[in-house]
């Protein structure tokens, strides 16, 4: 996160942060509404984090509980690390959206509901026996219920749209209301709508009219109802140029930046899979940056083509998610054996097997570190947030080429889809690391394709280079010459060489994110758990607990100082969205008594859950700390009803929405 860390008090009069959840039918365009609201929030200078949640079905049946699409945004005048625990505001576009989301809303929070959709049939589909707006069951909350559908139809009447098309503008009406609530300018959205509906002026103007009508409604309704405007100051942030970025975009940009720093063309081999496809989509449009994208016939061909491209002198990259990564395993072994550079991006999702394609999990860590046949060491880097992915991708490119090895970059479904503000980096500020290919024999009149440099890396020799013809392959290589060699001593030597090369990769020393370099408790995280851990540790420290946050980027090899650092703490707690994989690695590598805190409900950790777990180390009850499992939280996104699979990304939904409009 680009913003500064601010330890602000929690109980201030004016809110420092607000959580808004937009929920509606998957056809209602909630992801689009959320996306544009995110942009306006970023432009207002608030820090933010989002959680897009969408049904796995491309076209879920209308009005059903599992067809609910939701978008949560947490924004504020202080640093925001998570999409927020409980919403302050819920916008429910139909009964199903209300049903699946209402329990999560803070008591006293605001619920905005479109009564136009609360028909008998829709109530039945949402399994309501009576209308919740009328039966008093929403007494805990401030409810603003009115006919958004009718208001929208009225607003777009001058444009002569059919009823169906008119109702499609509902999301813009709602967005207009939300913009008013938080004092946001409408112009950027107007501009965006005009660009989006270029050539279809009447649609652009209809959507703009709906947006303006929603905004105007706010001004009018303020006088009589629970609705009021709320202003959040911009967050103190490092000076510079900002934009919002999702993890998938950041991977694409980071790979391009990495390849350019190395002065290499980029070859990306991919196969469609949720939630990794977005990287292929982004790169396919950036061919002017010496990018070749290849949609292969399967996951195996995608990585094999990438290895082929690396062999021929490009930077080969492939990406997938758990099941696809499993298919690529044998080819990773070949890249390790032939010592060719390769970047493998794994956007992790819930597993095993098809698992939870659209939900997030961190359960591919064993697969990344250990999941190949033979002794097949491979560096693994884990990104903590959408903005962090950019640097991680550059780092992955660097290691792959400097050490002639495949590198795995771990992100997850949450990072891939979520957006956050990003301080746009200056590409000139990164160290250039131009590659040198071998162009002449490297041992007198002899070519030694497996002669190692001071890093343990072999030379990169492009086919097409005169006089350096040689053969490589998956059979064990003789030291230096690379000839086939099955002899016992040689295999020992080469296994050691491959191990030492990876173990010797220079990675930055581990820093402490929050707290001290020793003390009572260290909370050790990796990947996208960064946000909730960071906030939970900050809160616990405010309450006087001696707890520190350590967040590991280099999962393999681990930073050289990490062992000593962990031994400086009495206790080590490792929260992960799996059943305790990194905990096992830490125990194995450093003989520390790392304790797991696990959650595998397909939902990210909530700050409160981590805070409670940390507190057990400091309360007076003996023997209750550590080894916990966090129960699924039915009030948290993703929508627990939307359990069906094989999904699509918010970007896909946006594209579908655009196509439909």
């Amino acid at each position, binding site marked *: 996160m680009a913003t500064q860390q601010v330890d602000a008090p929690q109980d201030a009069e004016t809110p420092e942060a607000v959580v808004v959840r937009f929920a509606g039918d998957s056809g209602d365009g909630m992801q689009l509404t959320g996306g544009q609201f995110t942009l306006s929030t970023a432009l207002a200078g608030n820090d933010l984090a989002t959680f897009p949640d969408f049904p796995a079905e491309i076209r879920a049946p209308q009005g059903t509980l599992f067809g609910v699409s939701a978008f949560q945004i947490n924004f504020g005048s202080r640093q925001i690390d998570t999409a927020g625990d409980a919403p302050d505001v819920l916008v429910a576009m139909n009964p199903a959206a209300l049903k699946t989301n209402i329990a999560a809303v803070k008591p006293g929070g605001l619920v905005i509901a479109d009564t136009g959709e609360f028909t008998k049939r829709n109530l039945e589909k949402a399994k309501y026996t009576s209308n919740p707006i009328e039966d008093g069951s929403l007494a805990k909350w401030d409810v603003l219920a009115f006919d958004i559908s009718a208001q929208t139809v009225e607003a777009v009447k001058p444009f002569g749209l059919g009823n169906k098309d008119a109702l499609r503008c509902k999301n813009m009406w709602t967005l207009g209301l939300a913009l008013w609530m938080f004092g946001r300018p409408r112009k950027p959205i107007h501009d965006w709508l005009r660009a989006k509906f270029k050539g279809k002026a009447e649609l652009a103007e209809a959507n703009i009219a709906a947006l303006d009508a929603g905004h105007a409604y706010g001004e009018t309704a303020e006088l009589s109802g629970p609705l009021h405007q709320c202003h959040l100051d911009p967050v*103190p942030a490092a000076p510079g140029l900002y934009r919002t970025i999702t993890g998938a975009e950041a991977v694409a940009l980071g790979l391009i930046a990495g390849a350019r720093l190395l002065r290499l063309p980029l070859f990306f081999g991919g196969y469609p899979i949720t939630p990794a496809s977005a990287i292929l989509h982004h790169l396919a449009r950036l061919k002017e940056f010496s990018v070749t994208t290849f949609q292969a*016939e399967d996951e195996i061909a995608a990585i094999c083509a990438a290895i082929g*491209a690396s062999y021929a002198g490009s930077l080969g990259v492939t990406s997938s998610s758990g099941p696809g990564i499993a298919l690529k395993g044998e080819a990773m072994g070949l890249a390790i054996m032939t010592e060719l550079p390769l970047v493998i991006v794994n956007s992790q999702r819930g597993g095993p097997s098809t698992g939870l394609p659209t939900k997030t999990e961190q359960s591919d860590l064993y697969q990344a570190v250990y999941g190949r046949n033979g002794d097949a060491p491979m560096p693994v880097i884990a990104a903590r947030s959408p903005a962090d992915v950019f640097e991680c991708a550059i780092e992955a490119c660097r290691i792959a080429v400097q050490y002639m090895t495949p590198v795995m970059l771990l992100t997850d479904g949450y990072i891939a889809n979520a957006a956050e503000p990003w301080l746009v980096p200056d590409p000139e500020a990164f160290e250039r690391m131009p590659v040198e290919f071998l162009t002449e024999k490297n041992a007198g009149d002899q070519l030694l394709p497996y002669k190692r440099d001071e890093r343990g890396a072999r030379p990169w020799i492009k086919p*097409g280079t005169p006089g350096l013809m040689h053969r490589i392959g998956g059979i064990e290589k003789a030291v230096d010459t690379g000839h086939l060699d099955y002899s016992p001593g040689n295999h020992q030597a080469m296994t050691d060489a491959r191990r030492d090369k990876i173990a010797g990769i220079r990675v930055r020393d581990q820093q402490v994110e929050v707290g001290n370099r020793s003390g009572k408790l260290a909370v050790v995280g990796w990947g996208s758990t960064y946000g909730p851990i960071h906030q939970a540790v900050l809160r616990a420290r405010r309450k006087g607990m001696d707890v520190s946050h350590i967040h590991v980027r280099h999962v393999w090899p681990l930073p050289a100082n990490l062992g000593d650092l962990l031994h400086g703490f009495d206790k080590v707690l490792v929260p992960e969205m799996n059943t305790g994989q990194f905990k096992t690695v830490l125990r194995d590598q450093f003989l520390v008594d790392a304790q797991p805190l696990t959650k595998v409900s397909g939902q990210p950790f909530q700050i409160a859950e981590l805070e409670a777990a940390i507190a057990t180390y400091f309360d007076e009850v003996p023997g209750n700390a550590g080894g916990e499992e966090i129960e699924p939280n039915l009030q948290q996104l993703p929508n627990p009803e939307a359990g069906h699979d094989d999904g699509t990304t918010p970007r896909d939904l946006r594209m579908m929405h655009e196509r439909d409009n």
Partner: protein
Amino acid sequence: MNDMTPITTVKDWETDQEVRWCPGCGDYAILKAVQRTLPQLGSDPANTVFVSGIGCSSRFPYYIESYGFHTIHGRAPAFATGIKLANPDLDIWLVTGDGDGLSIGGNHLMHVLRRNVNMQIMLFNNEIYGLTKGQYSPTSREGTKSPSTPLGSIDHPARPCAFALGAGARFVARGFDVSKNLPDVLKAAHAHRGAAFVEIFQNCVVYNKDVFDDFAQPKGAEDRQLWLEDGAPMLFAGGTRGITLNHETLRLEVVEVTDGDWQTAKVIVHDVTNRAIAHMLVEMPFGPFPMALGVLYDDPVPTFDDMAIADREHAVAGKEPNLARLLASGQTWTVSGTVDESAGHPARGMVSK
């Protein structure tokens, strides 16, 4: 291509590695044929890449003095595609076998042919798994007894050339290991711009000995081999027999040719661009018919690598690769001034692009 001046000799294409195929293996003959062909093509070892999968045939790259990549089982077409896209100037020869190319790698073989990536694909068909010690393969004939099929195999065999044509191949040819015509077939494959598929029958002397003798043995070969030549009538048995198309049944038939008058006998003139006839030739059963050999089909279309280059040039036209601008794309805003942590919020300006 035949008029190209050789810049190499056969010797230049031999490596210092000891060849490890079984004595008498058909692979030796194919290796020799390839090493003899390459100088005639004017090929440059530095610009030539042999890519293979796994199996006896896939050891081939180790014995050719060029660049070589011995990859993993069945996936050679995918590696070769990546190599070609990364450097379209490289001349790629892909070596695979009946198990590697049609069993574990059938999917990749289909797609490299369908995409028409410019390379020569040699599928050594010995109708058996040799390296794993003799199990039946996807091209083994029904009833093949092997360690995994002690009572004889029950699978219907795959027909490599029919598979290739069905996958969309634009060049399909056939030869066999010890045939003196093999270099000519390989030269034709090399001359074809696109994925050129060559099935090479190869004798596995250990596990499937002489299984192709019924047509490949020199004695009586004339009666059993139909060597196809573009523009020439489909004649065999010393010109005394030929292939004709029965216009009523729309099936091929063998006809007797008297005194060389093949026109009267209505023998088909081979047209390598006739896809319908090619489909019939690859399905023509040996026994009632001779074995069709040589170039069965050759009708080039634009290649995947050429199209990819054109596609990229089109996409890139008029665009400048400005990374700083790319990073700052979309809607941006500027935070200005220095941050004073104790004093709260900085002065802030907003910029919308």
